């Protein structure tokens, strides 16, 4: 893979591709995932879920179920304290503990097909399942509201009785939780100054993160009120905060042990099974394991929003964008909190536009409560804007990448919501794609087309802690609280090895539980290599500082007179008699020089965080004109990645996001029946791309170092998912002449559009005759 090196590589370990330290355990099946924990006396929990999309719970009777031999306890929302309604900042997200609690176990009303209503603990999973059949729930079905359009109509059925928003006022029940607006300049004047204005409407479907490992947790409750939960999560500390809020217990009383994780993509940044396992453990006095099936995962865990979007953009004939207006409504699912805000904050931020108006609405509907998904909100938003830009480029007759480069954001550009960009690599990224062999190759053959699109994602920062321990033999361990999803153990070890001058295999990375390391936010927002990496860098520097102190003591000089280079301590020759000691030699003398050396650091890197990331993608497709089926022939993605610590894992992130973006574009969607019951609750009919649907995904790493990180690290995990749907739509247009404005661009939908296009062409031809 091509690596365009802008960063000057003065590094020894950073930028190399060592084998990941957790690799052997994973490929030999020894690594423990969420469902792999077993404890003596452990019980099995199962969750009873609503068959209705929208209903009032009139009563729940479970005496029959409790009588079934082997059943030990049943819990409902009545077993949870009524949590605080006020939204609170919890790690990455603003969450109302009350809504969170109502999502864990429904209180009074069920708001989506699959909403948990009760849970059983029994001596075997089969008995627990049998018991679910014996629980009698009396529902009063209500009319489901499945789309933002329906939910925003006056007189629509209301999901949450006390939901209000500022605009409509305190007396008006509503399904709109928030309206957000960003404004700049004079919109009307901006459109007047344009030579070409295009306005279009778009829709995207609800899609799931599609992590392969279903959620699983084991709860253990001690009689003294202390508890432990083993769970598959992206953020052990987030689970601790959220679960203790829902259970009404002090945060310090819960230890969260994160398992290995089989994917999350944002979907494992909240809680589902954890409080239920803990509640059942408390009631029974036994460890309780709760695991979800695939269908439970699809029905009731974090998809991301389907959206309705209107985009209007004006350009001069030279290609200068004069004004843009975007209106978006995001389906939040059952409770407020769609990724509308990040959607609105990213939708057109790649471009420097003088006149802007962006409106975003967060709307509740009878679908599962959405959860973060890789660059939350940005992919659906970009679909409209990046498609309209393609149309505009065609209208005024310029290269679509040139249009993006001409208007691209750069150092000093103000973002629509205020902050000014520091050093960023958007233009470099588009230029790298434009210069690629792929973009300059000739695409031949019938029904084929090439499309491009770009995307932006902020990347998060937040808080991280790290400890670095130097062992007596001079090796080291690096302890963090960041769950390893994308190979971060390797990157953390590499950063410490770089600073300490150790070979990579002498640094052991460890992911600790919440009792064993300082607070660390979720593995999400592309923040780990940036923020936890910064903590590791600082902790390793803390070790170096202490090593210098030890050496100075031995050499009877000041620490300032000691240099540390590549694992060797030396006196500064100009000052003193030359002395030299390796890290290993010094480690053997720790016992006599003050004991073990422990480096530690914590960072709070703020919301702006891991430096803005940009991606641009080029896709070649072939469309079967008889069936509407799209084959992806070739894909190249260029991304501004800052300094690539482990280039293979950076490429992996680009490829993974692109693959998910392709799935989102072509076939993934939640299909509900007329009553709001989810029809495709398995991976057979929730169609993510398989190996045979994807070509090798080519990557171009554009390394523009991030000035806010000591090694130049930029978040790399998310932005690659943003451009694919628009690029594919643009490619389909080039292949067929049809503009697709609704996702997914599945065969039935594309076939219909192709037929309409042919009919209208025939109609026009007939009229012309």
């Amino acid at each position, binding site marked *: 893979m091509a690596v365009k090196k802008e960063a000057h590589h003065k590094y020894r370990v950073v930028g190399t591709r060592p084998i990941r330290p957790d690799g052997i355990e994973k490929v030999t099946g020894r690594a423990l995932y969420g469902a792999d924990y077993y404890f003596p006396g452990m019980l099995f929990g199962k969750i009873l879920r609503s068959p209705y999309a929208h209903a009032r719970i009139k009563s729940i009777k479970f005496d029959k179920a409790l009588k079934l031999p082997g059943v030990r306890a049943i819990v409902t929302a009545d077993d949870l304290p009524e949590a605080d309604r006020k939204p609170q900042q919890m790690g990455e997200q603003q969450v109302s503990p009350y809504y969170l609690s109502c999502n864990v176990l429904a209180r009074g009303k069920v708001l989506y097909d699959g909403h948990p209503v009760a849970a059983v603990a029994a001596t075997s999973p089969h008995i627990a399942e049998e018991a679910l059949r014996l629980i009698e729930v009396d529902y009063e079905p209500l009319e489901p509201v499945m789309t933002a359009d329906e939910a925003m109509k006056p007189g629509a059925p209301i999901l949450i009785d006390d939901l209000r928003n500022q605009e409509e006022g305190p007396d008006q029940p509503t399904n709109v939780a928030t309206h957000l607006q960003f404004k700049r300049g004079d919109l009307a004047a901006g459109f007047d100054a344009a030579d070409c204005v295009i306005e279009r409407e778009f829709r995207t479907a609800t899609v799931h993160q599609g992590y392969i490992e279903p959620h699983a947790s084991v709860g253990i409750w001690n009689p003294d009120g202390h508890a432990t939960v083993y769970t598959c999560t992206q953020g052990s500390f987030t689970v601790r905060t959220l679960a203790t809020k829902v259970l009404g217990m002090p945060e310090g009383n819960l230890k969260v042990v994160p398992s290995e994780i089989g994917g999350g993509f944002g979907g494992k940044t909240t809680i589902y099974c954890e409080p239920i396992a803990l509640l059942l453990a408390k009631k029974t006095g036994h460890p309780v394991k709760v695991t979800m099936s695939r*269908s439970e995962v699809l029905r009731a865990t974090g998809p991301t929003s389907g959206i309705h979007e209107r985009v209007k953009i004006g350009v001069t004939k030279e290609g200068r964008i004069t004004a843009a207006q975007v209106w978006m409504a995001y389906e939040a699912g059952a409770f407020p909190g769609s990724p509308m805000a990040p959607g609105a904050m990213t939708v057109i931020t790649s471009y420097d536009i003088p006149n802007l108006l962006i409106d975003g609405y967060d709307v509740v509907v009878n679908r599962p409560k959405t959860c973060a998904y890789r660059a939350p909100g940005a992919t659906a938003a970009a679909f409209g804007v990046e498609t309209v830009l393609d149309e505009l480029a065609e209208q005024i007759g310029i290269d679509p990448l040139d249009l993006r480069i001409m208007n691209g954001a750069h150092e000093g550009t103000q973002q629509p919501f205020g902050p000014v960009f520091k050093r960023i690599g958007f233009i470099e990224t588009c230029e790298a794609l434009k210069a690629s062999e792929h973009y300059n190759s000739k695409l031949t053959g019938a029904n084929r087309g090439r499309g491009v699109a770009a995307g932006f994602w902020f990347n998060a920062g937040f808080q991280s802690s790290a400890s670095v321990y130097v062992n007596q033999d001079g090796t080291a361990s690096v302890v963090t609280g960041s769950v390893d999803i994308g190979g971060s153990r390797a990157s953390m070890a590499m950063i410490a090895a770089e600073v300490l001058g150790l070979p990579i295999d002498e640094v052991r990375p460890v992911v600790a539980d919440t009792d064993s390391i300082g607070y660390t936010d979720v593995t999400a927002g592309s923040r780990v290599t940036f923020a936890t990496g910064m903590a590791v860098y600082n902790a390793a520097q803390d070790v170096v500082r202490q090593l210098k102190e030890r050496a100075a003591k031995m050499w009877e000089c000041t620490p300032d007179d000691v240099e540390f280079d590549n694992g060797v301590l030396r006196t500064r020759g100009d000052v003193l008699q030359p002395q030299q000691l390796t890290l290993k030699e010094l480690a053997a003398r720790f016992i006599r020089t003050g004991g073990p050396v422990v480096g530690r650091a914590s960072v709070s890197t703020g919301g702006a965080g891991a430096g803005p990331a940009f991606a641009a993608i080029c896709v070649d497709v072939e469309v079967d004109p008889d*069936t509407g089926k799209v084959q992806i022939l070739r894909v190249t993605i260029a991304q501004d990645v800052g300094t690539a610590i482990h280039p293979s894992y950076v490429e992996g992130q680009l490829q993974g996001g692109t693959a998910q973006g392709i799935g989102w574009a072509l076939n993934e969607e939640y299909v509900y029946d007329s009553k709001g019951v989810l029809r495709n609750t398995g991976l057979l009919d929730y169609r993510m791309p398989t190996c045979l649907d994807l070509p090798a995904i080519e990557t171009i790493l554009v390394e523009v170092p991030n000035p806010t990180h000591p090694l130049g690290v930029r978040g790399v995990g998310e932005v690659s998912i943003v451009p694919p749907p628009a690029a594919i739509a643009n490619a389909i247009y080039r292949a067929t002449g049809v503009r697709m404005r609704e996702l997914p661009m599945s*065969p*039935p939908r594309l*076939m219909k559009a192709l037929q309409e296009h042919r009919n209208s062409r025939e109609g026009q031809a007939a009229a012309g005759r």
Partner: protein
Amino acid sequence: MHEIHYEAPTSLEQAVGILAKHGDSARPICGGTDLLIQMRAGVRRPHYVVDVKHIAALTGIAFDPKSGLRLGAAAPCIEIFENATLRRHYPGLVEAAHLIGSLQIQSRASVGGNLCNGSPAADTTPALIALGAVARLVGPKGERQVKVEEFVVSPGRTVIQPGELLVELLIPPPPPHSADAYIRFIPRNEMDIAVVGIGAAITLEGDRCTAARIGMGAVAPTPLFAAKASQALVGKKFDAVAIENAAQLAIEQASPIDDMRGTAEFRRHLVGVLTRRTLERAAERARRN
């Protein structure tokens, strides 16, 4: 708790005896690639599962140029598409068997199970219909034979009576200058259930079609024999006009539904596209035979 007993008889008599004794609460299991999933989902809840894979009469594959193919109901798909004789004589059936699931699934899944499961979208069923296959059943009252196109009565229900087993499928030998083919449409390139599947077998004497059978899957509550479309080809010159005519007749017979795998409108459209493509592929093969 719901109890499940597993039985593994080694003779047909034993199997029929167990099935007859337990009636509706017993269910044959072959590869289990449909049944186990349905049991997990709670769709079927048998108390007795009777494994048919240990009965010799159900596992054989025997081809005779005169009498044709006896395909044991329990023979796994992998043995079908790894069998050179079958590849030679029934390439359409082989391509249908090859489409089912992954290698792991194909090592367990049987054509018999595919048919007895009664899904309108089963991939091998249209291929069997195209070949004029007949199912041989044995039960407490003896033996009977049923044409494959009459085997499935509604989604998930077949002609099988309590106590009965599908023993084998009887497929006539391919006539000279004939061949079969099966093509399905799926939105992805693997791991999907047919949105529409079309099987066709045709015989060509020069440029004339002397025999044709078209089977259709996923276009109605049960797999269908496209009788009118098939007959319309017979005795005619095999050309684009004839193919188009057959495709239109096939579309007329289809009565598909809207579901998560495609709209009715899209399915009708696909019947035309796939009938054309399958006939062309079968013809290309027939011209070489």
